């Protein structure tokens, strides 16, 4: 079977099967129809029909983030391809391994402005790790092999394969074989860190008095959470995670300071600002972390471990740059430290941990807001997240969209495991939450998957409610409904004199309950605090149903802490009327 003659379309599907692909997300159209026919005629790879190509790519992305396996999306040429672009950019910014296959017009028509023609390679070029334009049918197996290799190794990322329709023609068959391995002379991602640098890092660690471990999405992508946790426990250094890195270190562990950055906790940002050593692992000193880079952690030496050499010393100079995989480098560092009988400044470090605890005590997040009851008769959005945490016992996969609800979810749901928290951190894509939840739910049908969203974001990919019905995906949509584009409104409150330019809907929101029901799902409305916990319990307990839990929350709530732009990390708003400077 493997070596029989196959058409390009058959070769494509069989190659995907040999790459371990069990399901793909997509939307058919003219240039992809030969491929769709080949999908019809086989049983290896399931195809999930979405309602918009953006949803297909986000779903593949969610699948990839939750499982660590590459996600696959299939779209047609022209609008199918351009609709996939936001999904690609999302995956690119968060370095997730996905492969997007796009149909293209027949090779002879390329460049003639033919029907549904778009230069997909050109349009997607700045937002892919790599892309391939198939030049003949026989190339397809090797290109698939390369695409998966590139997408999943080194710093992962999206790969596009654009296939002109004539190369999937069922009437043209060729001798098919799938390459067992692939070597690319121009692509050899680093794995092992330089032992000299590892040793220098160990020196800095031994002399540190106010150290912080700052880890990001790279640790999760590289499945290095166990190593990170062992490393942190060995040293007893406080740990903070980026938005993308949440879950890499157990969120409920006392050593964890919470998220850092723009909406990071007081203690995490203060610790970064006052540190004398920052150990950055799989994180990239993003502008949402550093605030003003010129004022960033001036008293700290920086060790930077990253698989992408271009990320090291890009924004912040690394005193000890270590280029290699997080897993391998942390392991080497642990080994190096153990071989030295580990001489730490234990006294200074326990004083430092005490300082962190004091900061936490002083202005840390209140994780018991449910006990306070309603605030001026209103439900706080944070309380909804806490209720979700309670009812799911901290075990759910949480996807989110972008805005205040995303920050509340990141701040108040303690992620104890990697890959449990799935959000668009880099690109900040509204509309990501629901389709990515589909990918997660399909990967883990038995698990609770909740999409924490807002009435703004959810409407950006709301059409996927139909997909959820078709495939019976019992996602819990937790809609923090503040009847406004909350984060935009917050910025308008803080920086534009409260002028809410185009951030409210003037009573044009749909009845989300009726909407959910019209798609065959369950809708539950919560307007009173007293009903919140019972409704959440019911929502989570309906195991086989998608539930749209629409919660009216306090429309005036802001996300705090919030870094004050253009300053160091210790410049934080802590409440509407409280700041650190």
């Amino acid at each position: 079977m493997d070596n029989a003659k196959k058409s390009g379309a058959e070769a494509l599907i069989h190659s995907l099967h040999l790459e371990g692909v069990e399901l793909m997300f997509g939307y058919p159209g003219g240039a992809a129809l030969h491929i769709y026919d080949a999908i019809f005629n086989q049983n290896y790879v399931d195809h999930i029909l979405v309602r918009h190509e953006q949803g297909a790519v986000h779903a593949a992305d969610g699948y990839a983030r939750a499982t660590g396996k590459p996600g696959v999306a299939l779209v047609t040429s022209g609008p199918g391809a351009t609709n996939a672009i936001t999904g690609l950019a999302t995956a690119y910014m968060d370095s997730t391994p996905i492969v997007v296959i796009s149909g293209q017009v027949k090779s002879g028509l390329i460049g003639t402005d033919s029907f549904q023609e778009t230069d997909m390679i050109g349009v997607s070029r700045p937002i892919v790790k790599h892309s391939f334009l198939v030049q003949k049918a026989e190339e397809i197996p090797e290109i698939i092999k390369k695409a998966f290799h590139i997408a999943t190794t080194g710093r992962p990322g999206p790969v596009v394969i654009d296939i002109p329709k004539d190369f999937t023609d069922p009437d043209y068959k060729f001798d098919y074989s799938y390459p067992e391995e692939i070597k690319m002379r121009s692509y050899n991602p680093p794995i092992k860190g330089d032992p000299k640098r590892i040793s220098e890092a160990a020196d800095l660690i031994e002399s540190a008095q106010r150290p912080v471990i700052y880890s990001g999405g790279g640790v999760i992508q590289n499945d290095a959470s166990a190593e990170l946790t062992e490393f942190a426990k060995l040293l007893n250094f406080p740990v903070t995670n980026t938005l993308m890195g949440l879950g890499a270190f157990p969120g409920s562990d006392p050593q964890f300071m919470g998220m850092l950055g723009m909406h990071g906790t007081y203690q995490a940002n203060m610790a970064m600002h006052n540190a004398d050593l920052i150990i950055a692992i799989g994180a990239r000193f993003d502008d949402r972390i550093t605030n003003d880079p010129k004022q960033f952690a001036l008293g700290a030496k920086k060790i930077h471990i990253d698989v992408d050499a271009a990320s090291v010393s890009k924004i912040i100079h690394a005193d000890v740059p270590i280029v290699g995989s997080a897993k391998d480098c942390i392991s080497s560092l642990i080994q190096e430290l153990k071989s030295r009988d580990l001489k730490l400044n234990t006294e200074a470090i326990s004083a430092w941990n005490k300082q962190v605890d004091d900061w936490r005590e002083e202005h840390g997040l209140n994780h018991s807001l449910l006990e306070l009851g309603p605030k001026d008769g209103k439900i706080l959005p944070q309380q909804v997240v806490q209720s979700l945490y309670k009812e799911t016992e901290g075990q759910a996969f949480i996807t989110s969209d972008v805005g205040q609800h995303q920050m509340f979810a990141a701040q108040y749901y303690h992620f104890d495991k990697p890959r449990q928290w799935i959000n668009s951190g880099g690109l900040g894509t509204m509309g990501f939450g629901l389709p990515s939840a589909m990918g997660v739910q399909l990967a883990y049908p038995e698990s609770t998957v909740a999409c924490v969203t807002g009435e703004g974001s959810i409407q950006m990919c709301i059409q996927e409610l139909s997909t959820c019905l078709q495939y019976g995906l019992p996602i819990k949509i937790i809609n923090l409904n503040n009847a406004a584009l909350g984060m935009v409104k917050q910025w308008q409150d803080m920086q534009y004199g409260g002028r809410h330019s185009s951030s409210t809907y003037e009573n044009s929101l749909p009845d989300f309950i009726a909407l959910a029901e019209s798609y065959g799902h369950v809708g539950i409305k919560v307007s009173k605090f007293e009903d919140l916990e019972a409704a959440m319990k019911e929502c989570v307990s309906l195991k086989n149903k998608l539930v749209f839990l629409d919660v009216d929350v306090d429309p005036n709530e802001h996300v705090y802490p919030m870094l004050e732009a253009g300053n160091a990390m210790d410049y934080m708003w802590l409440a509407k009327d409280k700041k650190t400077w």
Partner: protein
Amino acid sequence: MKRVIALLMENQPGALSRVVGLFSQRGYNIETLVVAPTTDPTLSRLTMSTEGDEKVVEQITKQLNKLIDVVMVSDLSDSQHIEKELMLVKFTEDSFPKETFEESSIVSNSDGVINVQVVGTSLELDELITTLDSSKPIEIVRSGVLGISSNKDILSIEN
């Protein structure tokens, strides 16, 4: 500071656009750009000159190295190297400054028009252009910088 970067890339459609796209995408400057196939037909060699401080150039080389089609990158300005550019200049016969050019640099002379070729460093060519002002060349075309290291270092996948 001016830098000359040379790289080998897969001789494939789309490879060049990735390199050029990287520069515009990340806000780097390309001053000159020269591309040609090498004796190994699977590879092209690209030479570019760019302006930037050390940090920017370090980022540029790192980002170039990340491109899958790029096989090798070398910042020639890191060590002793030779930079040359070819320039073609067109004059009308009556304004041609005979004293400036050797006979051998004339590459065409017909219909009252003379073309000359000059090879030199960018700086030499800049200076020459300034001196030509009074003779009013009607067209000047420059190739952009080609570079090679002056020592035994070679940009090749064979070592």
